[in-house]
């Protein structure tokens, strides 16, 4: 088993980093100037969160790896983000739904983490949770507004929900690493986080007139480094400069 605390920090950091990559792709291409601004801002928050978590992970690991080393010099199987965040920007509905589902887990998770037995985790999550409250207020409003909008906007949001819902299994999964950290009070018990996620999404999708698909299909593995085929392309792009010019400063 990998070091649980390091793994936890990498999972948190990788989620933020890969979601930031997808978010950053919208820059200049969003459907309204306000969304360009919001997505850039969200990307900025997520990169800040990446820096905090990966720094903490690198320090805990004790091999001298910086946040940048961890972001730019690991390979695909070493990334532990959930598969949800790597899903492509098929359209803006996918981007919003991906963000909302992530936020719906992220907020109660962070809420639990602010009670962590680990001081460093408390400090990071206290900082991050403020941003995430703002994110979910925005993403929830948009999911409701577009679900309960025109026929087309509802169809697009429902389509995005159908495609992305199976990936929430990865968000809500826990394994022995989590068990160990939960037992030590470093991270919250998964049950209330899942409960909060379910309550949040049930209320929102009801207001949005959207329906959670009941196919039973689940997609998992990201937290253990098993990704979808999109991931390799994300990394090739993200890491290109660091890989091409190794060891220099930027």
């Amino acid at each position, binding site marked *: 088993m990998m070091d649980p605390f390091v793994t936890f920090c990498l999972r948190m950091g990788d989620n933020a980093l890969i979601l930031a990559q997808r978010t950053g792709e919208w820059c*200049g291409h969003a*459907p*309204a100037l306000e969304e360009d601004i919001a997505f*850039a801002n969200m990307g900025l928050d997520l990169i800040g969160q990446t820096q905090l978590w990966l720094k903490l992970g690198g320090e805990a690991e004790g091999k001298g790896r910086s946040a940048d080393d961890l972001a730019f010099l690991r390979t695909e199987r070493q990334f532990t983000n959930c598969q949800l965040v790597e899903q492509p920007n098929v359209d803006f509905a996918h981007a919003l739904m991906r963000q909302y589902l992530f936020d719906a887990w992220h907020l109660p998770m962070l809420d639990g983490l602010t009670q962590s037995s680990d001081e460093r985790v408390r400090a990071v999550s206290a900082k991050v949770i403020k941003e995430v409250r703002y994110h979910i207020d925005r993403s929830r409003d948009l999911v409701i507004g577009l679900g309960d*909008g025109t026929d*087309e906007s509802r169809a697009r949001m429902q389509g995005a929900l159908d495609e992305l819902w199976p990936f929430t299994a990865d968000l809500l999964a826990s394994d022995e690493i989590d068990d160990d950290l939960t037992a030590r009070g470093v991270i919250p018990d998964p049950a209330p986080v899942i409960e909060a996620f379910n309550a949040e999404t049930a209320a929102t999708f009801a207001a949005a007139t959207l329906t959670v698909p009941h196919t039973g299909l689940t997609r998992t593995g990201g937290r253990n480094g098993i990704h979808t085929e999109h991931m390799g392309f994300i990394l090739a792009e*993200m890491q290109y*400069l660091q890989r091409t010019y190794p060891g220099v400063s*930027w």
Partner: protein
Amino acid sequence: TPEEQAFQKRIDDGIKIEPKDWMPEGYRKTLVRQIGQHAHSEVVGQLPEGNWITRAPTLERKAILLAKVQDEAGHGLYLYCAAETLGVSRDEMTEQLLAGKSKYSSIFNYPTLSWADIGAIGWLVDGAAIMNQVQLQRCSYGPYSRAMIRICKEESFHQRQGFDILRVLCQGSDEQKEMAQDAMNRWWWPSLMMFGPSDKDSVHTAQSMRWGIKQATNDDLRQKFVDQTVPQADWLGLKVPDPELKWNEDKGGYDFGEPDWNEFFNVVKGNGPCNKERLEARRKAWDDGAWFRDGLMAHAEKKRAAKVAAE
């Protein structure tokens, strides 16, 4: 007319013109055109830099770039608001941009081919933009002047960050230095062209200056920019790609070569390397986003109707 005389007197006295004040139609039109172009430039300007967000080499640089692009979109928003005070809506201006009837700064029709280009855009392009915008802070039209004051603060921050990218590259490996010099070679002349054609060929300058829309001529601003930038290039160890560049002790400034105005007018006409890509990207964003804007509008309408019904 007496109205015109009173208007000109206000301007000469340094009193700002506000949206509800009387103004000559030409003044209004000039401002709408200029502010619109300026707003479009901020919006289109997201694209060349946005091209490197997913590829920024460190987390810090990625964050800075995201913040910068966010600022640009924000500037676009301020400027559209300023233009709207003159009675033209953001949607109208957007339609004009997408129809190719309204311009944006030609500089954004050049591609960003390397990370050093992000540095060069910050240092040279934002540098040239600031040179122009600083004087616009004193523009006679109040809303535009005030927007410029906000914008200038952020832009000078951007310029320093661009310079810092190049500083690190120039102090880095041979390949990094080469990357920086290559960016310098490609962005220098287009940056000089940002001030527009020489005063003798500039159609609007004289009237704009009389109206207090413009406070300095294209050539003056260009000279100031060169004088400010060349020492910075020297400090970085970058060669300015102009064989005619030379310090002129008498005028206390640099002599420099003439930009290729054929290239300039060709790019303005739509034949630059990325004109097509830039406009298409904005058109696609707009068209693909129609369902989003319509959806939110429909939802707001439903909520309004429900509220009315409840009352």
